[in-house]
């Protein structure tokens, strides 16, 4: 019970912290449930802080009876609620606001659910009940707990993405009716949330109960049909991707274009870091070089030199970026590991400062940048909006991903992998490190150059301040989160680290708090990434598979070799 008290106070402190730094108020702007419940994401965040504590306590009290777990959870909940109540009661008196600007009456209001200081007993009771529920949930068998958790997650997702869902649903006349049923103007209705919750729980429970049998039945399907089935998923994804801009509108398309640009950069950096193990923190330089090349060649403004079309300038940009990659690769050929990261860190800054410099201002425009870059024209259609550019980005991402995929299993891909594993041994086996490394830098840079080229026409202008160090870091983070060396991982990582934050724009500066926390949690819980490369996944599976042949080999006396000749 002392445990429960301590953990409860701790989670209460966490809740107070979240409230005081402003996270809660920021999240309060988004409603999870509409009237009459009127629950905001901020309140949910507070409750979650308490719930997690209560669940942890109940788990730890596993030896005791279920009643003890519920009691422990309730105690933890009440004590967490008490800490929060203290804030409400003492806050105005102690003038907390002098230090924490967020400690405002609206904050206290949202904590007490609008009842003021008089609501404290009710708050304590509510938190106690929540804690007890969490304690009970912690003792439920996994078969019941998991579906409930999925249901809660589904409701949260529904409210977080309600804007996106509404946009898509409102597009059609019939679907608009569904949208009106599910959502008020800014949040899902409690009824809709209940339906989603129940449906998710039911589906999840059903899959849990019947999934094994279903999977077994699919194994009896003839292989040809199974292959068709297996292709159905990717095919659906492609169709969905092609349709997205049409149903999602300009904002979604814009987000997807940015995701696409990061995917292009990610694929390039993945070649260097994921395949060849060459850490590069100045990668944005090549993105900038691609953008400036297209800008110079196509601009109809005063700094344009060729007034070429986008399609003619694009290959030039790719080649310029490739050459830049090789040239910048030469001085760092002999540098390894951590030192390489620091050395390449300089590149991005050098390129950015060069284009910013007075020295190159007559040609590159300095901080004013290059203006008047015309939109690309395709088949007589000017690709103006993000809906059009999305298809350009998608096409080039697909092309670049194909190239990366072909390279991965090639002779060159193996050489890169060997360099990543042990470059001395690779060299002793006849690998020319110079050409292999320069190819990695060059091809990686070329991929980023494609992204830069599209970026230039997307904005219609190019400025040095678009190419900050943070972009290099972001690209590196997204390929690590996606899974180092994995091609689908790059796309998943770009969606998770670039797409999601764009959709969650209203969380403002807290995006980066979440981003940072997510990175730490990811590296702790799933260091191989969201969609790990084949080798890493195989390693996990093969641990099981490999034991069988190993046993066989142990049973039969091992021979150093069979005389199959040489």
């Amino acid at each position, binding site marked *: 019970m002392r445990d429960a008290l301590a953990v409860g106070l701790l989670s209460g402190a966490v809740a107070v912290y979240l409230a005081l730094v402003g996270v809660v108020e920021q999240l309060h702007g988004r409603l999870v449930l509409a009237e009459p419940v009127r629950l905001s994401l901020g309140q949910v965040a507070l409750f979650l802080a308490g719930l997690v504590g209560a669940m942890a306590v109940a788990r730890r009290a596993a030896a005791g009876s279920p009643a003890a777990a519920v009691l422990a959870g309730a105690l933890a909940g009440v004590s967490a609620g008490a800490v929060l109540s203290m804030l409400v009661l003492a806050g105005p008196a102690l003038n907390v606001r002098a230090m924490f600007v967020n400690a405002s009456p609206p904050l206290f209001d949202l904590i007490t659910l609008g009842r003021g200081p008089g609501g404290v007993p009710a708050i304590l009771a509510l938190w106690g009940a929540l804690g007890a529920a969490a304690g009970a949930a912690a003792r439920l068998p996994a078969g019941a707990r998991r579906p409930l958790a999925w249901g809660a997650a589904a409701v949260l997702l529904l409210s977080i993405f309600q804007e996106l869902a509404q946009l898509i649903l409102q597009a059609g006349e019939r679907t608009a009716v569904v949208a009106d049923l599910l959502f008020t103007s800014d949040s899902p209705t409690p009824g809709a949330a209940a339906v989603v919750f129940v449906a998710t729980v039911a589906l999840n429970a059903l899959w849990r109960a019947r999934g094994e049998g279903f999977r077994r039945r699919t194994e009896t399907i003839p292989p040809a049909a199974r292959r068709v089935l297996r292709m159905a998923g990717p095919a659906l994804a492609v169709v969905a991707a092609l349709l997205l801009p049409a149903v999602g509108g300009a904002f979604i398309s814009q987000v997807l274009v940015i995701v696409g640009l990061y995917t292009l950069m990610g694929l390039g950096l993945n070649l260097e870091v994921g395949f060849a193990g060459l850490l590069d923190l100045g990668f944005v330089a090549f993105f900038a070089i691609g953008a400036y090349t297209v800008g110079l060649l196509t601009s109809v403004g005063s700094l344009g030199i060729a007034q070429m079309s986008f399609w003619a300038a694009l290959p030039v940009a790719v080649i310029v970026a490739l050459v830049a990659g090789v040239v910048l690769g030469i001085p760092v050929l002999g540098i390894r590991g951590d030192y390489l990261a620091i050395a390449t860190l300089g590149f991005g800054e050098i390129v950015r400062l060069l284009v910013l410099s007075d020295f190159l201002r007559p040609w590159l425009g300095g901080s004013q940048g290059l203006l008047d870059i015309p939109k690309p024209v395709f088949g007589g259609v000017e690709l103006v909006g993000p809906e059009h550019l999305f298809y350009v980005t998608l096409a080039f991402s697909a092309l670049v991903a194909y190239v990366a995929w072909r390279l991965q299993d090639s002779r060159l891909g193996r050489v890169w992998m060997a360099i990543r*594993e042990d470059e001395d041994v690779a060299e002793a086996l006849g690998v020319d490190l110079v050409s292999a490394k320069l190819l990695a830098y060059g091809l990686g840079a070329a991929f980023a150059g494609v992204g830069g080229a599209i970026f230039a026409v997307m904005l219609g202008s190019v400025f040095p301040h678009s190419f900050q160090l943070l972009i290099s870091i972001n690209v590196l983070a997204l390929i690590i989160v996606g899974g180092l060396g994995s091609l689908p991982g790059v796309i998943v990582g770009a969606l998770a680290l670039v797409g999601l934050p764009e959709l969650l724009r209203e969380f403002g500066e807290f995006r980066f708090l979440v981003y940072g926390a997510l990175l730490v949690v990811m590296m702790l819980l799933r260091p191989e990434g969201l969609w790990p490369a084949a080798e890493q996944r195989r390693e996990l599976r093969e641990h099981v598979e490999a034991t069988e042949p190993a046993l066989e080999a142990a049973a039969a006396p091992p021979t150093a070799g069979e005389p199959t000749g040489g």
Partner: protein
Amino acid sequence: MAGLLVVQGLTKRFGGLVAVNALDLVVAEHAIHSVIGPNGAGKTTLFNCVTGFYQPEEGRILFRGEPIEGLRPDRICRLGITRTYQNIRLFANMTARQNVLLGQHVHLRSTWVGAIVASRFTRQEELQAHREAERLLAFVGLRGKGGVLARNLPYGDQRRLEVARALATRPVFLLLDEPTAGMNPRETHDMMDFIRRLRDDLGITIGLIEHQMRVVMTISDRVTVLDYGTKISEGTPREVQGDPRVIEAYLGSRRASGGDR
């Protein structure tokens, strides 16, 4: 003197320490030539100089009559010298098959452009390379383990895979650095047979660093004994065994063992 590998007056220093001191050595073609000596005698340093890992301060190394000292390791590999390592150095996160395929690198011609467009030549060469990899895996007794990550292989298999990877370069001269380290008597026996077969069936000249005297005395044609970087004896196993200087180096003035360099 003619020989596949001729080392003349080789000296390698690390700061004030002379790891190899004015060494002369001739390895005859098709020989199994062992280099022995107490820990820190300079055996592995000698290997590192021959394979281009270290640049010697003085002396010459001639391979088939051509000087190779100062060449980069990849150039030396292309000339036909490959090695294995005292502490196994496989590409741990690559499969056994990929390790052997990488060994074939110097004999493959396909380019990255060919890989992207999936040219006919590339596809055929890759198919051929995969067949060769399977054959080599089978040759060293790793049939069917091509898809296993190198680091998940048992110790003995890792040693074998390292040899398969070295064989994939089609070496003329193969340097084995303590190939039986950590093996039980039965595995050691198999490895001895295997080394003999490399020489007899494949015609590869073998350079061998080995600590197990039984192995050295059984399979070597010639033995060179190093102590403090200097050659103190050389000859057939029988001659070396009877040499009082060798006995003294091993028994008389045995130092506290340090790193084997």
